[in-house]
């Protein structure tokens, strides 16, 4: 009896495991075309092990906030492209949910694989510190991109855009959209998201510093949609109940999408701006729900991260302010001191997407 049982157990287990490994490489098969990046990543994943095993070939890993975040996938496209130019293996990892705990586990696994570079988009500003520190002790270079980790736990932060610029420019945009008359509201992601909170700080600063300019466009309310469609929609709804709210600033792709959809469905007068993926937001920009919005190019962000990391690994820079390196097609980049402490590279100014240019961009990302 039990003999049979254990036999069954063995069979099923080994099945599941190989199904698992298969699952990785079978991903492209299942998501034909639609998810090219996924395909690349997982094949890369497949091969990378072999490489890091046989040749002492370097592996550069990108740790996403969570593995299903298309924005992150875009970043990885760039990252991967850069790695190909550099002739190293790219590796895309990420937890199934966007929690720091799971990221810690993944970082740990990467350390065990002794990759050369870890580029991480953190789910928590501080929580990754011990893990990343131990990684750096093992001689692994660590850079953060998109949303930073604190200064002690990184060599360098790849800053998609100066948070100050983002904060101020968003508020100014909102101001123009209501021609200086009508309340603003902010629909953010989770209350814990470090970069969102930083931007919001700058928005508030902007408002305070020229309070006379913004006297008719007060900041009515900040709400959190937890990057979750339902909650974001509910919160948007609640915001619209307040007549003063004339424009919504959503510095998060998910929130912006939800808000846009809601405004569109109720063809509301309220305007929307913020940070969104062109591919997602195109319909709303085209029909004027969102006159214009900002974002940097996540592909470039990933690309830069890879080169910056490579510079740390090979070119022997230490990531101190003043160091420079060449990032392929993007040319010479300089490392500067980051406001929050530590050092960073700036990708550039946030890019403005408007009806004129959205058509071309929505195809790209």
């Amino acid at each position: 009896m039990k003999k049979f049982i254990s036999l069954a157990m063995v069979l099923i287990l080994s099945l599941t495991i190989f199904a698992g490994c298969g699952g990785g490489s079978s991903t492209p098969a299942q998501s034909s075309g639609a998810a090219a990046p996924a395909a690349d990543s997982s094949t890369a994943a497949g091969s990378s092990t072999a490489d890091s095993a046989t040749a002492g070939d370097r592996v550069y890993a990108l740790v996403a906030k969570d593995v299903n975040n298309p924005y992150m996938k875009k970043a990885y496209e760039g990252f991967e492209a850069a790695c190909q130019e550099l002739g190293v293996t790219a590796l895309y990892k990420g937890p199934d949910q966007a929690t720091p705990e799971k990221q810690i586990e993944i970082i740990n696994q990467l350390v065990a694989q002794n990759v050369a570079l870890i580029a991480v988009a953190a789910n928590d500003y501080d929580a990754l510190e011990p893990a990343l520190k131990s990684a750096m002790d093992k001689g692994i270079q660590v850079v953060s991109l998109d949303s930073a980790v604190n200064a002690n736990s990184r060599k360098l932060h790849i800053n998609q855009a100066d948070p100050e610029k983002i904060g101020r420019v968003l508020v100014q945009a909102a101001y123009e959209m209501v021609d200086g008359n009508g309340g603003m509201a902010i629909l953010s992601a989770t209350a814990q998201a470090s970069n969102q909170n930083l931007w919001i700080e700058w928005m508030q600063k902007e408002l305070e510093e020229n309070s006379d300019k913004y006297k008719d466009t007060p900041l009515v309310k900040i709400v959190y949609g937890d990057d979750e469609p339902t909650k974001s929609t509910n919160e948007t709804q609640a915001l619209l109940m307040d007549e003063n709210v004339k424009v919504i600033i959503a510095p998060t792709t998910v929130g912006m999408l939800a808000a846009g959809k809601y405004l569109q469905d109720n063809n509301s007068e309220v305007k929307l701006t913020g940070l969104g993926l062109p591919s997602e937001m195109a319909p709303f920009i085209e029909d004027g729900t969102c006159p214009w919005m900002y974002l940097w190019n996540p592909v470039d962000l990933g690309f830069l991260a890879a080169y910056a990391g490579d510079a740390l690994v090979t070119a022997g820079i230490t990531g101190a302010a003043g160091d420079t390196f060449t990032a392929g097609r993007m040319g010479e980049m300089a490392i500067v001191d980051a406001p929050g402490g530590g050092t960073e590279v700036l990708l550039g100014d946030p890019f403005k997407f408007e009806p004129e240019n959205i058509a071309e961009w929505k195809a790209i990302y």
Partner: protein
Amino acid sequence: MNGGVKRIISQNVRESCLLAVIFVLAVAVNIRSGGNFLTARNLSDMFVETSILAILTMGMMSVIITGGIDLSVGSTMALAGMVGTSVLRDSMNEAGQGISPILIIALAVGIGMLAGLLNGILISWFHVLPIIATLGTMNIYRGVTYLVSGGSWVLQQNMTTSFMAVATGKLLGINNLIWIALVVFAVNFYFLGYARTGRKIYAVGNSLESAAVSGINTKRTITLTYVIAGAMAGLAGILYVCKYAASQGETATGYELNVIASCVLGGVSVSGGSGKVHGAILGAILFGMLNNALPLLKISPFWQEAIRGLIILASIVVNAIVSRRSTRKVLERRAIA
């Protein structure tokens, strides 16, 4: 006539109370929110939001009546939604034309039923405890969803306008989702209240042995409930992604808890055997109302979760006390007899 009303109330004490609570709450919220709650716009918004939850509740309640529980509905929703929309996306041509929404919805429901069937088989044939079985499938379905999605989202521009019209369109000035929810409610009301099979579900929930002895195929009945729950999850899932015009891997994560909560609010006894369809729907409405009202009342987002939890707690404790009262009454009656 008046007598009739009395009888109805006397036989639906809990439901009537629930209704009263809802009304009182509505008025209170309306006042506190400066008349923002009881506006046509907000109410319609609220009911649209709630309709999806209500559909799921209808499915979940029959599972709970048999004394089971289904933690996998959230994942099932995501899976059905993702598969449905992926098919839609791949079927789209340049002109933005694709498979008719009806087919897509049917597909999603089918997938939901399959998922439910697996749960049912595990539970009734392999004697796995519902909570464990569905806990496992919860992971599995979610994982499959991710694999199907290949990590990318299906977005508005990947959906046909006719498909999105399902969630936005109106009939007689009332949103389609609400209509669908109403239909589901009606069907379920008939099924659990007036169809033999439906009553068998109650019988099984009351006493498995008795049901078996009186010739009810308990295994099949139990499996059926999970299939129903799955089907509802499939339907809800596709409507969900249709409503938000975005289908992702993490769609409806943790939604199952809301569903269970609204069942409990609706007085569906988790120990199985009892629970009224109209009660459950009221429960869903109450829960939807909370979700809608708390932001309206400008309650700090950080307080909302706790408040929601406390209200559920209160309701189940009150339920327990009420039912104790009634049993006590019975005993008194016996003592006199």
